[in-house]
């Protein structure tokens, strides 16, 4: 067969030819050639001095009492149906619905005194937990991953900040959820997967050419594009035109770089590994997060759910369209238990846990008193979040809630302190200033807010 493209390889910035990449991808023999390709390009790996982060967002708001802050001696209407169990950290108990997590408690700490004072809708909590602040005065603050990418840039060809699987959608408040770059500008928005990694035919939308665009055609298109653009040299030099071209090149590198494509190629994971994480949207997203971090992505957010309506989530009001406690314990908790525990094990086995912060958090807690529908409602008064990995010490309990799990009893902790802790863990000065709207400097975390020092 006559192959024009084979006779005319196009050279890329990394010194490898596009033909190599596309053929490798197309023939699916990536497993064989990959180590060679990887060794030719050291760029993109995480230097040992740098820390990355995976944020598991437990959309809906887990109930503190039924999860990681059990109250066995509270009255019946508060205690709930689950018993506490011991963990591998003496004295630390969690709910029996997380048996696997209990074996990894040395790898994470519990912060049991988180609270916020904004309106008790999901959206406000999403903003505060993902950016450290409540949006007000027309200012949208950047997600931690956007700010990190702004400060440090992306590594090699993979995006700096990736959001899996989809942004949080409808949760009732119709407010922004804080997953974007806000005032930093669109170029620091996350790369959003917009697909379900547990789908049988999972692939990243727009990352790969559609089926009808074969490799030869895709390559010819690029050469045709150059035929137009070569016409106006003076035009090329202008900054905006250059930015457009740079983005086109970045996109092209992303779609043709085996490394970037391979980072998203979940089907390259052994079946056994995919089973270990659980074949759920959340489980496979956690696995994908690990793959991405391993390949140089700085920050990955995994949203456990996209909405709280008509889906079994942490939002256990007890009646439709929401979830009841038993459903949560039967479906949501095991899903989380399995994926989270595997993520910690897997990172540890690969030597990545010491450079990867893993945090899991919801947007608020639940009312201690069980409601007439047998559920619990929104309660930002106190809840528990998990954090470990990287420089964050595991095996600790920071703060306590009161006897009923209603308010913080010791060390009340606000969302901003969590963000400041993550920034510090990532190696950033939490008070480093970003250029805000109208030139107003805005620190990563408010000046008055300090990281949780007990975690370092």
């Amino acid at each position, binding site marked *: 067969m006559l192959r024009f493209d084979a006779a005319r390889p196009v050279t890329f910035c990394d010194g490898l030819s596009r033909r190599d990449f596309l053929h490798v991808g197309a023939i699916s023999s990536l497993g064989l050639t990959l180590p060679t390709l990887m060794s030719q390009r050291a760029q993109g790996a995480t230097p040992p001095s740098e820390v990355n982060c995976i944020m598991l967002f437990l959309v809906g708001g887990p109930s503190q009492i039924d999860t990681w802050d059990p109250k066995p001696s509270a009255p019946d209407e508060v205690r709930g149906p689950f018993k506490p169990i011991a963990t591998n950290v003496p004295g630390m108990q969690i709910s029996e619905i997380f048996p696997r997590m209990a074996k990894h408690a040395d790898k994470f700490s519990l912060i049991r005194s988180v609270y916020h004072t904004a309106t008790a809708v999901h959206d406000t909590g999403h903003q505060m937990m993902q950016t450290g602040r409540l949006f007000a005065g027309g200012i949208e603050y950047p997600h931690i991953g956007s700010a990190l990418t702004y400060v440090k840039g992306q590594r090699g060809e993979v995006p700096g900040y990736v959001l899996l699987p989809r942004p949080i959608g409808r949760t009732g408040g119709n407010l922004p959820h804080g997953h974007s770059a806000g005032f930093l500008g669109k170029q620091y928005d996350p790369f959003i997967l917009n697909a379900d990694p547990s789908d049988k035919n999972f692939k990243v939308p727009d990352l790969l050419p*559609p089926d009808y665009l074969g490799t030869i055609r895709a390559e010819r298109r690029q050469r045709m594009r150059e035929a137009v653009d*070569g016409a106006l040299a003076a035009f090329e030099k202008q900054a*905006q035109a250059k930015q457009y071209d740079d983005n086109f090149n970045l996109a092209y590198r992303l779609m043709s770089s085996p490394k970037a494509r391979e980072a998203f190629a979940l089907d390259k994971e052994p079946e056994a590994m995919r089973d270990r994480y659980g074949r759920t949207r959340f489980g496979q997203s956690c696995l994908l997060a690990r793959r991405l971090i391993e390949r140089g992505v700085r920050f990955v957010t995994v949203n456990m759910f996209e909405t709280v309506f008509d889906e079994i989530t942490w939002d256990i009001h007890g009646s439709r369209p929401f979830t009841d406690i038993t459903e949560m314990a039967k479906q949501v908790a095991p899903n989380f238990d399995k994926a989270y525990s595997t993520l910690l094990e897997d990172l540890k086995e690969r030597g990545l846990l010491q450079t990867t912060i893993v945090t899991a958090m919801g947007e608020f807690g639940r009312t201690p008193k069980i409601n007439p529908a047998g559920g619990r409602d929104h309660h930002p008064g106190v809840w528990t979040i998990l954090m470990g990995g990287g420089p964050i010490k595991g095996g600790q309990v920071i703060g306590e809630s009161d006897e009923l799990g209603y308010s913080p009893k010791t060390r009340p902790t606000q969302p901003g302190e969590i963000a400041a802790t993550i920034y510090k863990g990532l190696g950033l000065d939490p008070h480093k200033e970003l250029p805000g709207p109208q030139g107003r400097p805005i620190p990563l975390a408010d000046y008055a807010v300090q990281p949780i020092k007990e975690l370092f």
Partner: protein
Amino acid sequence: MKYAPVHSLLLLVGCASLAQAQALKILPPQVTLARAGATQRLLAVLEDKGQVVADQSARATFSSADPKIARVEAGGILHAVADGETEIQATVDGKKATLKVKITGSRTEPNAIFRNHVIPILTRAGCNSGACHGALAGKGGLKLSLRGYDPTSDHFVLTRQNLGRRIDRLEPARSLFLLKPTMMVNHGGGQKLTVGSGDYQILADWIARGAPGPLAQDARVHRLEVFPTEARLKPKDEVQIVVRALYNDGTSEDVTRWAKFSSSEDLVATVSEDGQVKVAGHGEAAITVWYSNQVATNQIQSPLPNQLDARVFKDATRTNFIDDLVLQKLEALRIPPSPACSDSEFIRRAYLDAMGILPTPAEVEKFIADPARDKRSRLIDRILDRPEFIDYWAHKWADLLLVSTRKLPQPAVWSFHQHIRQSVADNVPWDRFARTLLTAQGSTLQNGAGNYFVLHRDVTELTEATAVTFLGMSITCARCHNHPLEKWTQDQYWQMANLFSRVGLKNGERSGEVMVQAQPEGEVPHPRRGVAMAPTPLDGKPLALESTQDRRAYFADWLTSPDNPYFARALVNRVWRNFLGRGIVEAEDDLRQTNPPTNGPLLDRLAQDFIDHKYDVKYLVRTVMNSATYQRSSLTTPQNASDDRFFSHYLIRRLTAEVLLDAYSQVTDVPTPFTQIQIGSTGGTAATSLYPPGTRALQLPDSLLVSPFLDAFGRPERAQTCSCERQQDSSVGQALHLNNGKTLNEKLRAKNARVAAWLTENLSDEEAIRRVYLLALCRAPTATELSRFKSLLAEAAQDKQATRREALEDLFWAVLTSKEFVFNR
């Protein structure tokens, strides 16, 4: 080498003649010192044709005719000694300048007052900044108001709080207020003040006099004077800025050492904390000076090192006043203008900028073939009469006014959009458009304008949105404290807000209907003072609280008065930005004092011309489009390539989301279906059949139609009144979408796409290439392009796997994703 002496001789002659034309002058030009111990920093500057070109203060010898009245230190610091008048002389290189000075009040006691001396010293030292004691929670137990916006509370905090421990009136030096910032005792903020310094002495004297608080009769700063007001310098030159506060009791005071300085362009000129400007590069920088809630700016020009013939500017094409004023600025900065754009560039540019569509091949060919000299201006006239012109501007104002089902029910969106569209179609003057909107009454379904009040139910939101919409300024900061970047105070904010406190809304009988009416009563109290302020437009006259006039009408009178310095400027700046790619003030809705225009006289003149022509938007558009400035090439010359703000060439810009999508539909002949809509109130999506096939993105009244393309390319959400909502940056996501996404690829593949007809016609490769170029780029391919494409198409023809249709689709794709297509140029 042998030419060297001649050379230096020439240089000498040059310098001498240059120096002769320059006169020495002392600034400020008049000085009266009215306080015991008062000082004034003097500058000895060289002026050329009335413009400051050098600061010689450091080299000058200053002397006083009568040192018993006023003495002057080396470097030019003037000190009051005794009442009387005398003369100060400055000498440099044989040039002399004199200044009459008057000293009064030299026998009074030191009279530093809290408001005008103590707070400025704290502000300058950073004590009340957001990072220190000005933070919402204070620092170390001491909380001051941010930058001293609340002197009364600050005085209380400093003198009474903590059992008055902060002040020791008997032994001022033992006051914590002085011990902390001088680090005599430990201070988390470090050393901010030196014992015995001038500022220390002022604070100590103030404490010794009993630490008096702010009084109602305190003199207030009503204006700042900055010297020199403008300077024309070259890189490495330095000039000191002197700031004088003018008080409302007629006195003035040198406040240079307490003022805060910043430069708009550090690459052109930097300014030190003490006001020493150092020129760093070429161009123009504005130095902003803040003192006591007042702001002033001066301008530092550093012309480019271009050797230009005066004819470059004299012979440049001029069609109206815009060109005179732009060329005047370009000449001052020695930036040559680019030549005029070609006819094919012009027709594409004009169509896209004024109507958001591409010209058809027939229109392009007819225009290019037209021999008439005035064909461009006749084309502009035709554009102004096209229905697509209405679509484009209605869409623009709908962006501005946030027309969307995000917050409004569907029927209200139609009614609001229809109101706007009809106003554009009727070319309703901008003042009438604003008044109609701001005084709207009755059913929001009958009078769509009333929806403005439904969108902004909250009085602060209404106040702030109105300021951005019609004054092009954000006053949001002043809601909680005096505006840090503007002169607006919190009091002024709540005076203005009270103009909007009497808007009544109640649900009508029909679904989605709201009845808007002016209420006879209702006040919005100042949150700190707890009382309602007399309703007053910014810097305007108050309306009595007891007046029963519709306060909105009072506001509209002020807003649309020809004397309003903001209203016309805000609109002309928006229109200018639409056509020239950058506002004279950028961002287009950020007309604050600390963000000066790049060509002030041009903005002033455009605004005046707009007022003189009764706020006729079409007239304004016509004036801008006819200017030679608008019609310049986007290609730069080496001498003007660095200019991105003085309009020496047309600034390229990416087509906006809607225009680009419509252009793809137009070139491929495949319209975009808009069949899914996001549900604004609850989220989720639903099918909609409101938008028939062929509806263009620019014709959509709503911002919630589902379109991954429009989202990727930065369609504004219409959630917040801000030009920043629209994103014109390019992103990786956009590039991925163009490469692999459905929008463009499916238009190319559609069964009835333009390319299908060409296959039936059995078009040759060359003809196909020519047609795509004309359709998309409004020009013929160059010989190189033609031959490259022909060989690429020939290559494709050899590829057994590629059909001819696919090859032609790829040709379309390449042209439609090229920079030349995606950018207006």
